[in-house]
């Protein structure tokens, strides 16, 4: 069990939770470590201490939460891991994606838009199932590219693709909401 005295702000998120630095992680272990750390750093425990100590406690709790949210999400975990390797995923600046991928994105968006207009929940459900399957495939590719091949440039391209998938999932949820209302 970690002691508060050994809490180190210089540790990266993986070190913070005592996890090996890899894309594939044991999420059950992460959850367990998070709960233990959260109990340890909870600001309530420092309520009786001087202001400076309380501020520090708040910073520790914030870092633990931020680190947990980052590692829990496959997309954010990959992006963070790549940043540790000095690789920028260029999600803001890189507009050049493989043509077939962009064509497929266009078709996805058209299909979601059509299902939304036709108020066709069955079609949306089908799209969602397909999206989840393709998202899992991309995540599986990320595991291979990062952990096995250590091809971080290729992994960055996969992260960019995953961002589009995330957007599609949002669009599908928005379409469900529009149909329900």
């Amino acid at each position, binding site marked *: 069990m970690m002691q508060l005295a050994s809490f180190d702000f210089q540790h990266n998120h993986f070190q913070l939770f005592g996890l090996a630095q890899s894309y594939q992680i044991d999420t059950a272990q992460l959850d367990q470590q998070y709960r233990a750390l959260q109990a340890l750093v909870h600001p309530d425990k420092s309520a009786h201490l001087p202001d400076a100590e309380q501020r520090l406690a708040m910073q520790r709790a914030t870092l633990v939460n931020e680190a947990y949210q980052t590692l829990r999400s496959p997309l954010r975990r990959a992006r963070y891991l790549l940043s540790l390797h000095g690789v920028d995923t260029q*999600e803001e600046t890189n507009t*050049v*994606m493989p043509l077939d991928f962009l064509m497929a994105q266009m078709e996805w968006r058209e299909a979601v838009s059509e299902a939304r207009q036709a108020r066709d929940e069955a079609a949306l459900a089908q799209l969602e199932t397909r999206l989840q399957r393709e998202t899992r495939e991309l995540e599986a590719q990320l595991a291979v590219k990062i952990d096995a091949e250590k091809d971080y440039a290729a992994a960055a391209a996969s992260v960019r693709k995953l*961002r589009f998938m995330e957007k599609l999932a949002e669009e599908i949820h928005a379409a469900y909401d529009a149909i329900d209302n």
Partner: protein
Amino acid sequence: MAYSEKLLDHYEHPRNVGSMDKDAAEVGTGMVGAPACGDVMKLQIKVGKDGVIEDAKFKTYGCGSAIASSSLVTEWVKGKTVDQALEIKNTQIAEELALPPVKIHCSILAEDAIKAAVADYKSKHGAVVETLACGENCKE
């Protein structure tokens, strides 16, 4: 957030929405995407024998700023030669539409879409195009 009248006009009445035959020799197609917001943009130009862009069409899935940016550039490229079209800069688009700073990437997307469309057109006509060589990005 307050948007400019020009932006709203292009968003509410987008110009030149549609598609052209991507396999036609006189048509150049540019497909680009912005991972940060999941926007996808297709811009097509139809080029006459004199090298002047006769027509342009776009299809964009994205926010209002992305739609307005692509609508605007379809108007701008018409009547220009393909090389003149390459001179359109995202800063001009952003300025014309008074894009807020968080939406600058939409104008970058539109500029890149023109470059990609011209590159596609030129590649059909045997010119060596290096502007949008994919390099690492297209590697699967």
